[in-house]
């Protein structure tokens, strides 16, 4: 697939710009714009509607076969589209779990009917998804899942509980690994299902987290029935299908974008907002930017962002040469999550007393979103596998160190 000439790419850039102008929500980017409250139905619907628009315009679904609703685009085209979206910012994709984790899982383990049934509606934003993985006693030790599934004719009867279910409040469909063979050894006793969230016996109870939001839920399965045709992969293969889901989730930050020629002056290596914040924040008579300690920390994040950009490209090239095992994703996952946390800590220290103001207080900067991020990033190093679990993966699977003894 030949890359497009510069004129065609420029035409695409203009097309995307015009499209964004036409389609972004009313008032987007202006000081008066108030985004719908995080986690609200309104925010969810906005995200779904945005996904639908992206799909219709051909700005999503890259690299997914066209028979499943995807679109073929060159790397250069994808880069142009993403650059333009980054420039204006876009509504957060409320239904991001579907594209991020369900599509890669189905592409790898799903049968043709499942792919045809589910992928197009994920891309079009019609159906959103939740992920029922963690249980009260199966978090880092995910293989300890206790949910049971018993076969009854063409159906499976599922009982049990999940916690930290992402995206569940408004989800239409879910993915869940279930213990279908209590006598089989660990890693061989699970099967993986997709299920309809309107099924009788499925209950969602919001779980309030330290941010004050209920982004996650506890979900309960009480004799909920799943048709056998909704099993993804083989019976007993569920652990490996679940690993594919987690791999996709941990690699979620990995987007194969062609690096632009120059360090983007518009994003300053991704730290423009911190430079801006530091220059506009005065503490004890001087701006934070004039404090070398903070300046060094901000510069460090610019360096780390560039490092991540080039590492992603190195990984992409390795993937093309089939030199990747999948374990390498742990590197980027640990680094980016811990970096988020360190960035948020820095922001809190820049803002001082003002980091205390939450959304709703008129003194809250940017509607309290800095404070929200500060609190929310505590979860970054836990969700999708704690960074300790990921360090264990690097040690044992990449370095070949013996299984750990704690």
């Amino acid at each position, binding site marked *: 697939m030949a890359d497009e000439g510069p004129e065609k790419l420029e035409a695409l850039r203009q097309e995307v710009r015009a499209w964004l102008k036409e389609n972004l929500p009313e008032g987007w*980017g202006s*000081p008066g714009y108030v*985004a719908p409250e995080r986690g609200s139905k309104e925010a969810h619907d906005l995200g779904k509607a945005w996904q639908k628009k992206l799909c219709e315009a051909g700005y999503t679904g890259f690299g997914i076969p066209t028979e499943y609703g995807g679109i073929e685009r060159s790397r250069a085209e994808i880069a142009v589209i993403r650059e333009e979206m980054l420039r204006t*910012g876009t509504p957060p994709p409320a239904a991001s779990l579907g594209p991020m984790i369900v599509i890669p899982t189905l592409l790898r383990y799903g049968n043709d009917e499942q792919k045809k049934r589910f992928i197009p509606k994920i891309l079009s934003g019609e159906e959103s998804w939740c992920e029922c993985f963690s249980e009260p006693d199966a978090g880092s030790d995910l293989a300890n899942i206790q949910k049971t599934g018993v076969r009854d004719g063409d159906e499976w009867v599922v009982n049990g509980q999940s916690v930290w279910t992402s995206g569940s409040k408004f989800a239409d469909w879910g993915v869940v690994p279930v213990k279908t063979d209590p006598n089989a050894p660990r890693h061989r006793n699970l099967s993986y299902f997709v299920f309809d969230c309107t099924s009788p016996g499925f209950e969602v109870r919001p779980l309030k987290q330290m941010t004050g939001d209920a982004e996650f839920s506890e979900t309960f399965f009480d004799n909920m029935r799943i048709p056998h045709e909704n099993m993804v992969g083989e019976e007993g293969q569920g652990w490996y299908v679940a690993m594919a889901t987690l791999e996709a989730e941990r690699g*979620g930050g990995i987007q194969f974008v062609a690096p632009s020629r*120059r360090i983007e*002056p*518009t994003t*300053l*290596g991704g730290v*423009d*907002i911190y*430079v*801006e*914040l530091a220059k*506009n924040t005065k503490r004890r008579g001087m701006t934070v*930017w004039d404090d*070398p300690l903070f*300046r*060094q920390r*901000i*510069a460090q994040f610019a*360096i*780390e962002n*560039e*490092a*991540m950009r*080039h*590492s992603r*490209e*190195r990984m*992409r*090239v*390795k993937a093309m040469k089939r030199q990747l095992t999948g374990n390498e994703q742990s*590197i980027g996952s*640990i*680094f*980016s*999550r811990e970096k988020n946390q360190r960035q*948020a800590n820095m922001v809190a220290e820049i803002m001082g007393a003002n980091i205390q103001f939450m959304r709703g207080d008129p003194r809250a*900067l*940017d509607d309290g*979103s*800095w404070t929200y*991020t500060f609190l*929310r*990033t505590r979860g*970054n190093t836990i969700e999708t596998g704690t960074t*300790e679990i990921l*360090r*264990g993966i*690097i*040690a044992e699977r*990449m*370095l070949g*160190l*013996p299984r*750990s*003894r*704690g």
Partner: protein
Amino acid sequence: MAIEYGLNEEQEMLKTMARDFLANECPMTHVRELMEDETGFDPELWKKMAEVGWLGLVFPEEYGGSGMNFRDLSILLEEMGRAVLPGPFVSTLLLVGMPVLAYGTEEQKNEILPKIASGEAVCTLAALEEDGDWWADSINIRADYRGGHYVINGTKLFVPDAKVADYMLIAARTKRTENPEEGITLFLLDTKEVYGTMSTLLKTMDETRKQYEVVFLNVPISAENILGEVHQGWPIMKQIALHTTAALCAEMVGAGEKVLEMTVDYLKERIAFGVPIGSFQALQHRASDLVIGLEYSRSLMEWAAETIKENDLDAATAVAMAKSFCGDTCKKVVAEGIQMHGGIGFTWDHDMHLYFKRVWTDDNAFGDSNYQREVVAKTLDEIHQLAGGGRWAKTAGRLTQMG
């Protein structure tokens, strides 16, 4: 600019060849022999390096070179870092060879470059003085114009490989104005033709690289031996610093990766409490952190080398970013390497300390990780002002959320 990630076939060959060559010609036993030697220079090894084409690697063929590029050179430097190779490779090629190629007159190039490529000439740069910092203000040794030629007086410090250098590039002050970057002139000295220089070996930490004090006492030198223009030496020195800094990143990453490999091997072999110590999570997680740091060091180092190869506008920023990150990471790697080896890693006989000393010396040269980070901060400030800062203020926060 097309950044080439990963190695092409020729580069893979160069890497394999370099690793084999250094394992055979300069194993650790030989490194230690050269540490004991006052010059740290092995003429036989140097000749062999010339024969395989390393000494003229990036020179055009007309000057006896192999016509390869800076990325190829950085691959070689990684391998040299792995081997803690002693000797004047960086001094000869990066501190003198490349600037002569870029700024020399045709006569200067014809005189020096083929001799470097063939192994006949070893070169070095006398830049630093008493404070040891790479900045224009510290260049104070005088070159006074007297009746048709210049006379150099003063003392240079931290001059690598001075004793074996056939040519010495000297940064001297020919004029003092408000702006310290003005009035520096680079002289190319044929050490065999002049009297009045005296080199004394410094007793320094990294004994694989010999450094000297060089005293110049009324050393006469002709204006023909100026590299570039009179008073205009600093921009050339900035270029030397840029290239050598990128080269040192490659050397540090090579050394860091080797230390990680040695450490992981040790974690698998060493038994304590009846089990390999690599089964302890406390050590596993520390080893994993080094993997993470080295992945990003390598990514920045390769990018920096590519920007130099392509003469890209981002080169200065890329190199500063790479040096800052590689320096921080590799300093951590060599320290952790010693710690995870326990007592044996602290002994003179174990090789860990050679890597530790090399990496700390490399990090310091041409500005350490903190200095380089400040360079990045200044660049951010400039771009921010150019971009007409303020435009993100109203949307700040929205972009900080995790993608």
